[in-house]
């Protein structure tokens, strides 16, 4: 990847030039300009940049949603029955060793590119943390609470839905957040295989120039932080009141 001369030239450039770079990046986001390749092609500007951000967001949301729909029931069933610990926990640990670029390369070499394949590849990174956290969360639910529910006459499915799931919700959400971070990060480099996400700006210096690269990096960082903040808010909302009280009591 070729960097601009300005970037290569040295370490710790003066503050003014750093500020200049960022000013250029924001200008790229707000106003259209000629592409570096010329030929009257226009790049940058709110609508073009917004389109890339939107693609990245919905590809990520789709992959996260499908991962959740697969991993949550699987984790609930395995956790409730107390079976498959090796699979559920091992999968989560093993998945951490899979390089994001390796997943993309695997797509190119073995599966083929395109939106559907990219979504499936993102699920490879999304399913393990949700599955592992769901399994562990269900196993850690206070056995006393489960026994009490059984004593009140609840059946298996009721225990899962009304006792185990609410008590496990915060830990499950931690897994969802990890999955979201993985997915958003990998969706960025999905631009390598033809899905036009913000990574297209970051890895397209030949077309978008240094300003475009930096603009892409800033937007990807902001997008990831927004997703993380949004999911933490959801996590706080679905934490049962009893658990919140317990936690603040143990902290005090």
């Amino acid at each position, binding site marked *: 990847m070729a960097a601009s001369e300005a970037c290569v030239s040295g370490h710790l450039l003066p503050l003014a*030039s750093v500020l200049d770079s960022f000013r250029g990046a924001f200008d790229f986001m707000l106003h259209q300009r000629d592409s570096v390749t010329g030929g009257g092609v226009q790049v940058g500007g709110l609508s073009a940049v917004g389109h890339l951000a939107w693609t990245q967001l919905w590809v990520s949301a789709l992959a996260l949603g499908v991962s959740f729909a697969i991993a949550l029931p699987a984790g609930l069933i395995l956790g409730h029955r107390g079976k498959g610990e090796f699979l559920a926990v091992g999968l989560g640990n093993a998945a951490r*060793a899979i390089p994001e670029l390796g997943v993309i390369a695997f797509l190119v070499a073995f599966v083929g590119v395109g939106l559907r394949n990219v979504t499936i590849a993102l699920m490879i990174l999304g399913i393990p943390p949700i599955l592992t956290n769901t399994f562990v969360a269900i196993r850690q639910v206070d056995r006393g609470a489960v026994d009490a529910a059984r004593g009140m006459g609840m059946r298996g499915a009721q225990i899962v839905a009304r006792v185990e799931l609410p008590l496990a919700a915060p830990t499950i959400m931690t897994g969802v957040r990890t999955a979201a971070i993985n997915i958003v990060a990998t969706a960025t480099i999905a631009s390598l295989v033809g899905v036009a996400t913000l990574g297209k700006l970051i890895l397209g210096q030949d077309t978008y120039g240094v300003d475009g690269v930096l603009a892409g990096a800033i937007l990807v960082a902001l997008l990831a932080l927004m997703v*993380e903040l949004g999911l933490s808010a959801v996590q706080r909302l679905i934490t049962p009141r009893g658990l919140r009280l317990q936690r603040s009591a143990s902290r005090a």
Partner: protein
Amino acid sequence: MIALATKLPLADAAANSCAPGLPASFCHQHSTTSCVARNGFFCASWAVDNLDRYAGPFAKHALIVVISVGVGCAIAIALAVLSHRFRWLVPPLTGFTGVLYTVPSIAFFFLLLPITGFGTDTAVIALSAYTLQIIYRNTVAGLANVPPEALDAGRGMGMTARQLLWKVEMPLAVPEIIAGLRIATVSTVAIATLAFFAGAGGLGDPLYKDISFKTNVILAGGLAILMAIGFDLLLLLLQRLVTPWRRARPA
């Protein structure tokens, strides 16, 4: 070193008559090896002949990981010790390291470019920032989970606060610190495949150069995964070495 297409091979794929997805220049040089020309699932003989091409990137990859995790570990443990002393530091530091962890690595590299330039430094800064959260969180938890009896015993022996920290609390927190270190190391090996975008080389370099050549993808990706497993086992061994008392327990 064989000259390889420097652009994304996909772009040249349509222009030549060799296996779909392979750059023309690549096939030309390997026209005698039918497996390579066909882009077979895994061309073992090619892999054996060309394994040395991966030695340099493998070594650089390992170096980047060791430096990044080392720097991250030192900073994270220092921050954890500080916030063990001053408890009010825990929430802001947890939040701050969490924010660093959230930013995708590729964005991190290019955000740093105007400040630190193109090269290994940039990659190391970004990668070590990633390790902070998990090591910090585990160290804080490890220090907090030290049994009060152990602290009382230490105090009873006349230890000062500093002696308590280094002779009682830190050793007892070692298993949790190393657990965090293992997770951080394994993820860093995986994320470091992107370090070549910051100009730092590593296994991502060969992986990306021939991204549609199946043998290359398996080899480069496989080496990265093997490195992760190798580091993980080394850390497990280290943990057993530095916590001999845990082995003495009956199973």
